[in-house]
């Protein structure tokens, strides 16, 4: 009997060994359908079902290609992809943030897409977005969705307080105070993440880096003025003191519950907003361009995602992946995704009547027209990571605006490979 236990254990482990060896080798059988894997970084609850439907359509149209769908949380997808790509295990297609594309290409993980099935219709795309996916003149990604930050507001609260969407940050402060006085609702919730500080920076005429003169500019006068505005807003109570671990989530929760009148956020968040009790009536959600700073100009960063193809895949997988990318970024697919989830298409012919009929998307389309592309250097996402650390320190009051930004600039110079040659003040 005792022997039996040991034997069972052994058999069990062997059985596991036999069943466990799945992985990427099973689709190598010649002649059979090619199975490609797609890592999607979109929201698993709100967006993923739409993309799964698109995959079904794709598979129906391409009998020889099967797509394995994998949703990977956005926050960790870049690191996970790097680990996998280095060992030759990366998925054939990745939905990569526009800020990741250059860094992944620099590591030679991505296959150039010029002249492949993926880019047949590239001329219909927004050229600014296409340029953003290029590294050294080669195209490494096809824009799938685009976004920009806007001022989202609760129309009902605005009406109660008798205020209009503010045009400048100064106006916003006044409006917030009126709202608090008349309705008891907090003014604005600002996500303590440096990406969400970009409208303030652009509003003062500032930039993160100047690629022309090879200079880090985040800590210049405009940069300091921008963050000082944020600090003042939090100090005066115009902006809610944010939560530093769950800032984004608390912002969404407060906005959805009608506890805060305004947030700065992108189109991806509107589907989530509409699930909240404050927006049971869809029309209550207002979208306005972000306010402008003292430079008199408003600026918002262009975001979004590209579909990229893994360089380590064999020819058959690459071709299949390229076809899949072409399908997912086609006008019809983009229109479908836009109407289902509220994301914004990357090509003009996808802004059909159906897409712009929705007031939220129509407003965002206008916001997008004025958006600013991020600096064309690799490692932009790493720059945001370093900057956010200091941004939070500043907001907590652990350091001054000036010191925090100087530290950010230093960290960028020492830690970001593409900025090693840049000068810092």
């Amino acid at each position, binding site marked *: 009997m005792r022997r039996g236990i040991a034997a069972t254990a052994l058999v069990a482990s062997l059985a596991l060994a036999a069943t466990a060896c799945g992985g990427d080798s099973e689709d190598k059988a010649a002649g059979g359908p090619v199975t490609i894997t797609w890592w999607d970084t979109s929201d698993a609850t709100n967006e993923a079902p739409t993309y799964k439907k698109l995959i079904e359509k794709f598979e129906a149209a391409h009998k020889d290609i099967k797509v394995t769908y994998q949703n990977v949380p956005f926050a960790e997808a870049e*690191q996970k992809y*790097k*680990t996998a*790509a*280095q*060992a*030759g295990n990366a998925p054939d297609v990745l939905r990569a943030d526009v800020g990741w594309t250059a860094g992944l290409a*620099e*590591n*030679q*993980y991505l296959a150039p897409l010029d002249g492949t099935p993926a880019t047949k219709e590239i001329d219909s795309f927004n050229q600014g977005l296409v340029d953003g996916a290029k590294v050294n003149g080669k195209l490494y990604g096809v824009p799938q969705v685009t976004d920009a930050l806007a001022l989202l507001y609760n129309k009902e609260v605005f009406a109660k307080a008798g205020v209009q969407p503010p045009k400048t940050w100064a106006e916003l402060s006044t409006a917030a105070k009126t709202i608090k006085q008349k309705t008891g609702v907090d003014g604005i919730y600002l996500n*303590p*993440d440096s990406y969400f500080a970009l409208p303030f920076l652009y509003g003062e005429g500032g930039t993160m880096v100047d690629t022309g003169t090879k200079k880090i500019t985040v800590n210049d006068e405009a940069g300091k003025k921008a963050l000082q505005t944020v600090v003042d807003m939090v100090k005066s109570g115009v902006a809610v*003191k944010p*939560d*530093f*671990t*769950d800032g984004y989530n*608390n912002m969404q*929760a*407060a906005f959805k519950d009608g506890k805060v009148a305004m947030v700065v956020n992108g189109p991806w968040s509107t589907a989530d907003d509409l699930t909240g009790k404050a927006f049971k009536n869809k029309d209550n959600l207002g979208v306005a361009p972000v306010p402008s700073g003292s430079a008199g100009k408003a600026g918002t960063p262009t975001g979004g995602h590209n579909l990229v193809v*893994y*360089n*380590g*895949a*064999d020819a058959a997988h690459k071709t299949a992946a390229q076809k899949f990318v072409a399908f997912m970024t086609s006008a019809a697919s983009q229109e479908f995704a836009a109407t289902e989830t509220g994301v914004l298409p990357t090509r003009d012919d996808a802004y059909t009547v159906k897409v712009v009929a929705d007031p939220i998307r129509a407003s965002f389309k206008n916001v997008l027209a004025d958006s600013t592309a991020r600096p064309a250097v690799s*490692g932009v*996402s*790493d720059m945001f*990571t*370093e900057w*956010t*650390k200091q*941004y*939070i*320190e500043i907001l*907590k009051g*652990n350091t001054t605006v000036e010191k925090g930004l100087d530290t950010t600039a230093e960290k960028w110079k020492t*830690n*970001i*490979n593409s900025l090693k040659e840049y000068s810092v003040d």
Partner: protein
Amino acid sequence: MKTATADPATAARPARAGLLTRMKRSYDRHWYAWAMVLPVVLVIGVLIAYPLGRGVYLSFTDANELNVAKQLGATEIPATYQFVGFDNYWRVLSGADGEFYPKLLWTVVWTASCVFLHYTIGLGLALLLNRKLKGRSLYRVLLILPWAVPAFVATYVWRMMYNSESGIFNAVLGQLGIGPVDWLGDTFMQKVAVIGVNVWLGVPFMMVAILGGLQAISSEQYEAAEMDGATPWQRFRHVTLPGLRPVSATVIMLGTIWTFNMFPIIYLMLGEANALHSEILVTYAYRLAFGSVRDYAGAATYGILILSMLLVFAVFYRRILDRQEAVR
């Protein structure tokens, strides 16, 4: 079964025969034992020794994500990193990277306070549970319950409770008329918060271990002490504590090692940007390897340093214990 006994006379027998003969004899004598430990040796060798060796090697290079070898399907990109000697260690230990000493200090504070609280609370509860009282087994089940909660689940649940706007703690404080506390934001409070979670998770283990230790102390000793008219405090001090010594020695050492390397709590509780002052060495090393720039050499250096520190601690700790053993 010759192997089963630990007879010092046979063990110390001088071996005069040739190497081969000795190996043969040794094999004959010990193959049972070796067969039984072989799986462990294999697992440790492949899954720990090799990565460790590679870690040591990487710590002497300037490897990062751009210059390591890559296997991209059919094409293989060879590694281009270089040997840099002790540069990494020098940069870290001289304090030039500006991260090591502050993080080491906090890691030590974190470990010491967690282990101290684990031990004292565990001991206190074990003493209470070791008495005859109604509902003892119910108390015991309830008190051990946190142990059954996986660390990542516990971390998430506490993170939800600590939330500055929607957390239960601030909601209760608000109803009591006390202002909200920024549990996970404030640099000091976030340290208290993560220690709190680790204590909640770790006390049951200590309690159970100490309870076992208490039950192993023979009641004759207590009776003898009572006969001598010892007060409860004297009994605790002179019977209970010495009797617990072997258990305490082990659990304190294990607790120290585990807490020093406790990964999920700090990693999952605070975001990367928010944990600037609350990152312990292990989570920092992980971020070096998997964070923004993927500094494999730096992560390896930190890993080796962590291991060395724990080794030194273990050796000294055991030596102190042995010395006390000898005095006894």
